[in-house]
């Protein structure tokens, strides 16, 4: 049985950084507060992992991008707690614990202030972010329904 896991990454208390978590909640996915070991645990054995995160890539705020594949450029030391998504991928690779397919869906953030809510641009982009992720996670048409199990690790 094909197994899909949806994982939102972020921090609800850092403005737009909570966007990935909010989208994951809407899709019944897992929430990850930045613990790379948990990330590796969550996608181990999955056929498809859809990771939703907020990006800071100098795009207009609210821009949604999909990145498919198991390679990400190294992010440098940007996380408040040490290891980035790229590091988690490296760790998964070193341990032979990568999902078969990975799609990272990001929304460009506008602000990451402590305690701030989602910015208007990201709030507006949220429905599209959710529907894009749902689309990515949808199993290919097959005779039997219920082939996708979301949010299980």
């Amino acid at each position, binding site marked *: 049985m094909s197994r899909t896991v949806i994982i939102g990454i972020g921090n609800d208390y850092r403005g737009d950084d909570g966007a990935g978590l909010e989208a994951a909640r809407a899709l019944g996915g897992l929430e990850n507060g930045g613990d790379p070991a948990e990330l590796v645990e969550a996608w181990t054995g999955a056929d498809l992992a859809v990771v939703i995160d907020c990006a800071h890539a100098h795009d207009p705020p609210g821009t949604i991008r999909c990145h498919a594949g198991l390679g990400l450029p190294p992010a440098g030391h940007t996380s*408040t707690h040490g290891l980035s998504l790229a590091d988690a991928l490296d760790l998964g690779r070193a341990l032979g614990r990568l999902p078969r397919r990975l799609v990272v869906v990001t929304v460009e953030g506008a602000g990451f202030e402590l305690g701030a809510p989602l910015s208007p641009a990201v709030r507006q982009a949220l429905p599209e972010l959710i529907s894009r992720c749902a689309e990515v996670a949808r199993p290919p048409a097959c005779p039997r329904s219920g082939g996708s199990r979301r949010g299980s690790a």
Partner: protein
Amino acid sequence: MVHRTIRVGGLTRVEGEGALLVRARDGRVNDLQLRIYEPPRFFEALLRGRAFTEPPDITARICGICPVAYQMSACQALESICGVTVDGPLRDLRLLLYYGEWIESHALHIYLLHAPDFLGYPSGIAMARDHRAVVERGLALKKAGNDLVAAVGGRAIHPVNVRLGGFHRLPDLRGLSERLEHALTLALETVDWVSGFDFPDVEHDYRFLALTHPDEYAILSGDLPGFPVDEWPLHITEEQVPHSTALHSRLDGRRGYLTGPLARYNLNFAKLSPRAREAASALGPVCLNPYKSIVVRAIETVHACDESLRILDRYKPPDAPTVPVEPRPGVGHGASEAPRGTLLHRYRIDDDGLIAEADIVPPTAQNQARIEDDLRVLVEPRLGLPVPELTALCERAIRNHDPCISCSAHFLELCLEQ
């Protein structure tokens, strides 16, 4: 005249961000500054005016690695103002939650942050490529801690089930004993593994600060050496230093004391659980070598697993998940043992049940001056070494104390060095 400046511009494998500046002249270190430039946090200020029930949840957000420590020190301080004692099975649940955090935090530090220093790898990930089974063991151990925190606290990071007087709901602890039994085996293997590392031959004459408790290897409550917790502001004072956004601390007027695993181990060795004491037999009751803190963390992980099993064995669910806590005006103090050391809280509740004052002294801030002392001793005789080599040595010396720099930076300092 030989003048040399060494700058380590971004420490890796340390929680948060920091930097180290060393200025030397004629073979002497004139100036050595561990610089912390994590953004300021203002937690103490933002707590003012909040309901007396809120600090456990708000302060938990200071750190993603040790939120339970913040919750426990806050609960203890606020409950003491309100005249409430949480004991019996509810205290046991708090211990379980805290042991879970120790297991999580120590496993992360031992396997992904500290061990690579001893085995010659630039990172835990690089180490995982060659030592897959070992890192898998570390992750499995960490997961047992996560499971424990999630079971008692509602989720593994920033648990949501803690409240003044106890918990929002009683947890379901079924299945945890089996996982903890396995974790205990992994923790014992960890002690064996790290004990075999090659340790630099260094000992420091540390002044230690840790909680002590008559019946326990203190974690949740106790006294501080020579004074009760409610007198901590008389003995532990903070001062600003220009080069860091974290405050430096003094103990009875003197800078440079140490809190954390080495302090706990040396002060409370006799209170370790039987399995932990057995695992510590090779190290012995005194450890003054900071590099061996990795062994001490492994022994504390054994203790946490062993004690968790003992609690799970005796636990009988209480009638209610919480005891009632009504606000009273007054001042209260709390202290508990975060994985990195003693975490001190002090609050004043006003007549309306709101927080009027809050003080938080995290362990890394307390250790900062002592870490600088360790570095001074390390660097001075090695000033002739190539910079990359000396840099690596300094990073190792800092990581010995597992500084959680993101925890310790909590006020703004506008200081630009050169």
